[in-house]
């Protein structure tokens, strides 16, 4: 059996309390990187997924709906909620100038029946005119939806081929969409004919908040793509001015609300991470400096036993590296154990689009967290390593006389 260098290990084992404390500290630092970066990346991925699904420049809704608290989330993110306006507004909007494409959508929320005890948002689009939903529905179904066909968001635990019942109407699930990290993942998409059937049924059952609407004569939301030669703001002002009792919004502005809060959240996360790191680095630096100071005599003994200056500083740094590497691996694992299983809870509590990035992105982030934390730990011992390697064994051991 070989007798090889294990001085660093022995030192770590010989001071278990100190080693454990420093390991936990680095673990917290690494975990803060994992949690922070994965959260921010997930928010960005979620925003990207949201943007890619919004093909419209302007959305027009009933003025009464625009005052609803949750209204932006209903039209943007598919949160539960519905409102209607007369179909004549659609025609009025369509007459204005600068409109290249226009399409209407109908919303309905399911009652807590059927598959799920929680209400779902049902979005009906008009396949004839639609330019926002159809492209990705066509991508996932490979064709158009027939009557009573529905496409479901990724978070619904129903499968293609299943049926799903809304207001006693059985619908066929023909496709499932990719994840977006928003409530769109729990929404159900269908064409106008189907949703009209569902609205009728809800009215018959007396389960619709609107008692006296005719599904053939209402729309919930009008989507507009502005012609290239017209500025979006001009068309928007024109609509808000001339089509009364409706409210028009620029989707970019609505998204910018989301991205503003995303920037805010990212900023807070960044500040917290910096605080944890600053504190962590100071503590690590002090811990290594103090521990080396109090062991000056031991290092002098290593010198007389034949350790070169380089060997001494390597011993100090590798001791720090073993601790911080262990800590950062443990911290990264802990961070993942928070982020991966609990991502649903995080998504829910943030109320922002939240979509975990692809596996390789997470792996890269974790790897970076381990490397950065371990390196930071080792670097914070570099100063004490340098100092202790400069010490004069003779002077240290000569002691006090």
């Amino acid at each position, binding site marked *: 059996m070989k007798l090889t260098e294990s001085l660093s290990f022995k030192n770590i084992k010989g001071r278990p309390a100190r080693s454990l404390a420093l390991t936990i500290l680095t673990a917290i630092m690494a975990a803060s990187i994992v949690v922070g970066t994965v959260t921010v990346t997930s928010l960005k991925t979620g925003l990207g997924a949201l943007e890619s699904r919004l093909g419209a420049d302007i959305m027009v809704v009933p003025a009464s709906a625009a005052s609803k608290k949750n209204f932006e989330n209903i039209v943007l993110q598919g949160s539960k909620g519905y409102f209607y306006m007369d179909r004549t507004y659609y025609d009025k909007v369509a007459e204005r100038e600068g409109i290249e494409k226009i399409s209407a959508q109908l919303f309905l929320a399911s009652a807590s029946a059927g598959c799920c*005890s929680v209400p779902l948002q049902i979005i009906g689009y008009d396949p004839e005119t639609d330019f926002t939903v159809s492209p990705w529905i066509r991508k996932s179904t490979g064709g158009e939806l027939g009557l009573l066909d529905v496409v479901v968001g990724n978070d619904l635990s*129903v499968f293609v081929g299943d049926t799903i019942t809304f207001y006693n109407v059985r619908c066929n699930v023909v496709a499932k969409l990719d994840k977006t990290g928003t409530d769109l993942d729990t929404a159900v998409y269908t064409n106008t004919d189907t949703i009209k059937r569902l609205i009728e049924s809800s009215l018959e059952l007396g389960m619709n908040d609107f008692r006296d609407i005719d599904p053939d004569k209402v729309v919930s939301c009008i989507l507009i793509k502005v012609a290239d030669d017209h500025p979006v703001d001009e068309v928007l002002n024109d609509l808000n001015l001339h089509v009364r009792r409706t409210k028009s919004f620029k989707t970019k502005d609505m998204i910018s609300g989301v991205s503003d809060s995303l920037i805010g959240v990212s900023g807070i996360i960044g500040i917290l991470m910096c605080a944890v790191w600053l504190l962590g680095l100071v503590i690590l630096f002090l811990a290594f400096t103090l521990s080396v100071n109090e062991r000056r005599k031991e290092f002098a003994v290593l010198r007389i036993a034949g350790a070169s200056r380089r060997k001494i500083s390597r011993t100090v740094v590798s001791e720090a590296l073993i601790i911080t590497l262990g800590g950062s691996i443990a911290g990264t694992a802990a961070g993942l154990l928070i982020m991966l*299983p609990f991502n*649903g809870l995080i998504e829910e509590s943030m109320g922002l689009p939240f979509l975990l990035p692809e596996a390789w992105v997470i792996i890269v982030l974790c790897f970076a967290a381990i490397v950065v934390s371990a390196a930071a730990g080792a670097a914070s011992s570099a100063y004490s390593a340098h100092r202790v390697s400069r010490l004069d064994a003779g002077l240290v051991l000569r002691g006090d006389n």
Partner: protein
Amino acid sequence: MNNIKSRAGGIILFILSIALTVGIKLIFPACGPHDDGSFMNCHWAEQAVFGSGIALTTVSLIVLIFGSSKVSLGASLAMIPTAAVTALIPDVFIPLCRMPMMRCHTIMHPAVIVISCLIAVTALVNAAVIIRKKERSK
């Protein structure tokens, strides 16, 4: 002091098992019953985890009482597959509710996975420590 040291693994396992057993009922239970009083799938997953938690708690007590003996080693090893199976109960052995944003998905499922994993890892480490101690004392 030495006594506490040799029983640290058992103490941690016991605390984790209790946390799982009590938590599944009080802190991170599955979704409540429908209005008509009928239960959804996830309720049965909760019940199964609860049962499994009682088993884990019992075994962890054996680990705790028998310190670093062979009995404790065996009990430790037995906890590893039990904890692994417990982690798989929600969603794999017993399907949960269909909506991922429901309580059983967002809270119960991850909590069960995290605690079960911690139990399995602690049991593994504890077993390894006992084996090493045995080898050294030979």
